[in-house]
């Protein structure tokens, strides 16, 4: 363990990796704070820039964008009530109210501190737990892998959007999209319409750029923008009372965020909402939540950062993305010829430990950047969106073109952009679609192998204890919320309490 950490520091502390880590976290902060861009978009759009990099350098930079955006997303949530990231949605509730009362700086500061504490806490757990979990996962065969992918889909479906039916429909659509191209087992070309570009499947990164960048830009044009609130340096100072009130929420948010982030497909949005909900029930100041309570910023911001790091547990050890952005990062791994999974810790120790240690360094950089510079970052919000979004469109299309140097990629981005806009408009969750598309080929491979192991009988999964437990968990997750609703609820008591989350 110690040897691995030292190896990680040796890798992460090279001038080149330090530089790109800084570029990544800075870009992530900027991307996170600009409405219409999020970590998934940022990683997808900037991925082509890293094609010539060493894989470890590229991943350090891309991961920096991911957790940097968690910090940046808070700034827009607090200042203009427009979350830069889905995981910062809940922060708008109290963060914006604090800003309206002149406490924007305190909200931004506690978000940065909470995010840092949660990130360090979750990184220690990630480093301690990921290697033994990867060793355990080495025992997994196709049957177990299939059940874990079903768990990933069940997790993301059960926490997606207005209704689980929508999530389920989008996960199915993602799996369907993943079947386009040559079938690996038999060589059959499926849904290619004689287009050679489709033989290798629907290009994943282009779809991501279209869904998240172009679709989001179009949606932002539709919704317009809110008026910003300006913040000043002296407003950054947190009072002793605010700091004391934040300790508990930061601790609870960190633990909850890590636990929830470990679930494949859960992302960090869920963690922030659950953490806020817990504060609504356990905080001494729960009656103030929703009206500008610092607990309402500290807890969800800690939770989403802890979850962002914990998302790397399933991503690195099982090769199953923890959420939307880690799905894109998983695509990046495969572009660099790497296969995330239990063997990665043994076959690529320099890369894995260098990446993990870079999270520490990146989070220190983010704290140093965010505490004194939040007001400066906030000035970027003054760039009119009228100038910003045409440039985002330009960058998205040129980024997509540069992946394969062909116009087919550009058309895919446009089509996916139209799809992404309508998905946002009709509240169809994108994360299940992304997960379905990413794990589709792996899912089909595991399905085919399981079928072969059972001589055509898929019920062979029932004879594998690990797979059985995982499947039971998946069923529980998928059906759990419906079962909870069937339980009798104490309505009068609930009505007396403040609205909870």
């Amino acid at each position, binding site marked *: 363990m110690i040897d691995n950490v030292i190896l990680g520091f040796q890798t992460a502390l090279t001038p080149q990796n330090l530089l790109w880590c800084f570029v990544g976290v800075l870009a992530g902060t900027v991307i996170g704070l600009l409405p219409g861009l999020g970590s998934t978009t940022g990683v997808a759009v900037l991925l082509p820039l890293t094609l010539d990099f060493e894989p470890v350098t590229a991943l350090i930079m891309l991961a920096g964008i991911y957790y940097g955006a968690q910090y940046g997303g808070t700034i827009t949530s607090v200042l203009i009530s427009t979350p830069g990231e889905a995981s910062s949605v809940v922060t708008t*509730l109290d963060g914006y109210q604090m800003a309206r009362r002149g406490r924007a700086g305190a909200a931004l500061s506690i978000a940065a501190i909470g995010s840092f504490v949660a990130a360090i806490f979750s990184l220690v757990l990630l480093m301690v737990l990921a290697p033994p979990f990867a060793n355990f996962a080495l025992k997994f065969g196709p049957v177990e892998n299939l059940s874990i992918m079903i768990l990933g889909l069940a997790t993301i479906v059960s926490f*997606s*959007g207005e209704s689980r039916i929508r999530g389920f429909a989008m996960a*199915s659509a993602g799996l369907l999209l993943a079947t386009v191209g040559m079938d690996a087992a038999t060589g059959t070309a*499926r849904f290619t319409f004689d287009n050679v570009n489709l033989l290798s499947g629907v290009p994943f990164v282009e779809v991501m750029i279209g869904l998240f960048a172009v679709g989001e830009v179009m949606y932002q044009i539709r919704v317009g923008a809110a008026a910003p609130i300006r913040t000043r340096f002296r407003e950054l100072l947190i009072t002793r009372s605010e700091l004391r009130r934040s300790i508990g929420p930061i601790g609870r948010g960190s633990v909850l965020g890590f636990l929830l982030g470990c679930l494949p497909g859960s992302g960090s949005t869920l963690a922030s*909402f659950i953490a806020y909900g817990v504060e609504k029930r356990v905080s001494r100041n729960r009656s103030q939540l*929703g009206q500008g309570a610092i607990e309402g910023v500290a807890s969800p911001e800690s939770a989403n950062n802890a979850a962002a790091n914990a998302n790397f547990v399933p991503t690195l050890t099982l090769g199953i993305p923890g959420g939307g952005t880690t799905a894109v990062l998983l695509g990046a791994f495969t572009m660099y010829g790497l296969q995330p999974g239990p063997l990665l810790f043994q076959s690529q120790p320099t890369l894995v430990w260098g990446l993990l240690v870079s999270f520490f360094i990146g989070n220190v950089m983010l704290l140093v950047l965010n505490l004194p510079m939040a007001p400066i970052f906030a000035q970027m919000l003054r760039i009119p969106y009228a100038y910003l979004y*045409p*440039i985002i469109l330009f960058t998205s299309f040129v980024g997509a073109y540069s992946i394969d140097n062909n116009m087919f990629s550009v058309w895919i981005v446009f089509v996916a952009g139209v799809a992404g806009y309508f998905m946002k408009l009709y509240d169809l969750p994108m994360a299940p679609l992304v997960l379905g598309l990413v794990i589709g080929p792996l899912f089909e491979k595991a399905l085919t192998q399981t079928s072969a192991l059972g001589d055509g009988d898929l019920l062979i999964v029932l004879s594998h204890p690990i797979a059985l437990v995982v499947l039971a968990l998946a069923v529980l997750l998928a059906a759990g919320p419906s079962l909870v609703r069937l339980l009798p609820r104490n309505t009068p008591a609930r009505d007396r309490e403040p609205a909870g989350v």
Partner: protein
Amino acid sequence: MLALVGLAAAVSGAFYGVFVDGGRVGPGFLPLVAGGLTAVLCGWLALRCVHGERSHPPGGPAEGVEPHLVEDIDPVDIDSVDNGTDDDVDISGRTRRERIHNLWKVFGLTLGAIPLVQVVGFLAAFGALVFVISTWIERQPLLKSAVIAAAATGLIYGVFGLFLEIPLPGGLLGLGTEG
């Protein structure tokens, strides 16, 4: 539409071979199952939309948000998260109707810019897109828009064309980085 796509995929999947030798899963199995599920679920959602049973309007909470969690939040707060669901004007003074018109114009302009790449090249086509959107759609000052479009094109040329050596198509005018 998604329901129809799913249905078509499910039917096509049956022709690829759902099962192969020994009853094992074939290349048509996943298209059949995933397409069938997509058709059924999206069809059901479409029916719900038609019957007006949707529990909240378009532009609802962000993805990844547990439904019952959101219901518990004060609706006033959610409105402040997504300010696009009402008819209020935004900070640029546009009504929702005007914003939707602009959206379709941007869609159309982008759709037009892509084939234009073959004629004037990638940089010129998308540089022009930035300029036209800024001036025509967003009504920004002509000179400022021209400077921003030129700066964006220059930056993209520097990063993608020179630094990354991406062969951006030059079109008939030869304004690219090919060759």
